[in-house]
């Protein structure tokens, strides 16, 4: 039997990225964020998620891309991993795809981009390429740097 996983797919710059759906708590329209002083530059601040204070990071800045003004499509993906709840600001997100594990190539083949560290593999869905993010690494690295 083929092993498949569902991924929440979002767009950042011109590329599509995927995060395993099991880590995703909710998907929100990007709302007001309170800046947290003295935090890393990619930490946008904290948002109020129905009474819960959730830190939000700007994934563009995290990956070293240039900043983009928020528009109608902007979304915050709220993840819950290892007891850490965190929001990721992305350009847009609107679909969930099911990708076979077989269709994911290991990241070892690609070794020269900014987001290197956080790539787990490249998934193929029809003719599209979905960059699968190493979510644990993303959250824990940020965490340590603080």
């Amino acid at each position: 039997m083929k092993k498949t996983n569902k991924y929440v797919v979002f767009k950042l710059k011109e590329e599509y990225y995927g995060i395993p759906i099991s880590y995703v708590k909710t998907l929100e329209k990007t709302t007001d964020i309170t800046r947290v002083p003295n935090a890393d530059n990619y930490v946008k601040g904290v948002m109020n998620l129905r009474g819960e204070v959730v830190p939000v990071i700007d994934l563009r800045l995290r990956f070293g891309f240039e900043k983009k003004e928020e528009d109608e499509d902007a979304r915050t993906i709220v993840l819950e991993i290892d007891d850490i709840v965190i929001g990721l600001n992305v350009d847009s997100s609107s679909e969930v795809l099911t990708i076979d594990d077989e269709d994911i190539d290991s990241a070892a083949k690609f070794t020269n981009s900014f987001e290197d560290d956080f790539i787990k593999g490249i998934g193929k869905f029809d003719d599209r390429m979905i960059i699968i993010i190493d979510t644990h690494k993303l959250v824990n690295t940020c965490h340590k740097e603080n």
Partner: protein
Amino acid sequence: MDMNQYLDIFIEESKEHLQSMNQILLKLENNHGDIDMINEIFRVAHTIKGMAGTMGYTHTAHLTHEMENALQLVRSGEIEINASIIDVLFQCLDKLEKYVLEVETKGNEGDDDSVGLIKLIKKTIHKNDEENVNEKNEIAAALNIDRIKVGIHVENAVKKAWEKEYNTYLIGVELSKKCMLKAARAYIVINELERLAEIIYSNPSIEDIEDEKFDLEFQLIVITKVDEKVISNKLKNVMEIESISIVDLKKNNVLQIDKVDDNSLDFDGDTKFTDDVNIDVNTVQNQRNKVDAEKKISKPKIGKTVRVDIERLDNLMNLVSELIIIKTRLEDIDSDGTNPNIHEATEYLERITTSLHDSVMKVRMVPVERVFNRFPRMVRDLAKELGKEITLKMQGQETELDRTVIDEIGEPLIHLIRNSIDHGIEQPSLRVTLGKPKEATVELIAYSDGNSVVMEVADDGAGINLETIRNKAVERSLILNEERQTMGDEDVIKLLFNAGFSTANEVSDLSGRGVGLDVVRTKIESLGGNIEVNTTLGKGSRFIIRLPLTLAIIQALLVKTSSEKYAIPLNSIKEITSINESKIREIQGNEVVLYRNETLPIKRLAGIFNVESELANYENQDEKIIVIVKKGDKTIGIVVDDLIGQQEVVIKSLGKYLANIKSIAGATILGNGSIALIVDTNSFF
């Protein structure tokens, strides 16, 4: 069977029981004759024995069993409570606490089988007993009883029964050879008898009978009001009995004091106390009545409490916090007051949320008794160790505090009480020369005062010698020699709370290591409280601790810098003032201002938090709003752009991901749903 699921309950309940045993023992120490106390300890020991037995903790069960045996003797009036018995009981308590701790930390009770302690119990009881034995032997001799060997206690009971004109019978029962369940049959017999009479002796012991450790015969001595016919009629109804013999002890003196048996207790590992338990019918009846009465009173109480996981309460608290936030939001929407219906509804909502908040807070509250409970024992031990005579007076144990605070407050209080006993209170001989009562008093008082709880530790000892503190402070270069005289008394007392300061001339086991008071102060300040001292030389000292009711919800001042809102905890604010920009001077890169003839360091919130101050937009840009915050006796002025107002805020953590952000203590959600960060003013110092 998997016991793990019961382990938590066992630990929790054992701790509770030991705690109450501790309290009762202390009371008993002051009032040796109180039979209710003894019954209570007995009950506690019995409960623990049962629980430990079920869980398979044999050492615990064994020790409690010995305690029961000893207490049974006290209960029956065989021996009298004295200081050495209480000491032994305290030792047992310590040991039991150790066992429970081992179980909690390691999962088993360890290898210590407390043989020594059990020996000690027996020895103590016996020593006590011996004094009485001689006297009782004489009575026995006079009665000239023989044939059946019984303990001195049975003898005594029988004699007492005669005095009260009860009948005493020796009942021999032989079971039929066909009897399959001997223990059950014997149990029926004993049960029948117990309805009519008090069984004071059995051979073999009741335990052995229950375990079927007997052949076909067993003998019982009973004290009863009914005569032998009634008994024999009753017993004849029991099936599978071969024969019954009933002998009236008054007519036939068949008893013999078994002195050997009594003495054997000293070296015999397995006690036989159950065999020679003496029960005076009247006392037993009285005790039963009392126990029954107690049960009647205490039973409904049990039904009224529920054990709840603290996590669930936290969850409930979070939900209430959210409700408060949404309520404030509704109030904001309603602020124009155009629709009277909505206005009415929000007001009603306000009332409900307030009382809901109060109720949930109360659920999380625990009486300070939980902390206070351990002190009587501590004071007792310390007093003994130091050869001082001390009474501990406690007041307001029922005062309630949030659980989070309760868990933290124990340590500082221990420090203070030790301090009082060690440094404060004089030796009894000295007290007498000073014309003070020989017995010193340490007071521990708790009461609530508005939104805070006050705890006081007071003693009638020597007080604090300010001169000594001045000398010490100079010696340790905490102050300059010139400051020595100019320094006010209050400032001198504050020196006590400085790190590395200790006034004890001799360093004892307990205190005087110079870590005491500053640790206390740090701890209490970290709980959002404060501490002060009143002291009169020769009369005593009083330490006053003031603590917030809860750590989850605080009063805060909302301030604005640029467009950002920040909350400053109200209890760290000393005052708010305005100062002209021109008065702020820069000294060695730090801004200061001369305020009320003292230099006040100035920090700008905008600077700390890296925002552009929008002050330029304000008309009177020269007047700066300064919030003066304090930490201990230090103050700092913080420049803010604007004040928004005072508000009750719910503290929320920024979460693991943003842990350790400098100068930020947490966040809170405002009425409009936006988030304001809470400033950690302590980090500015």
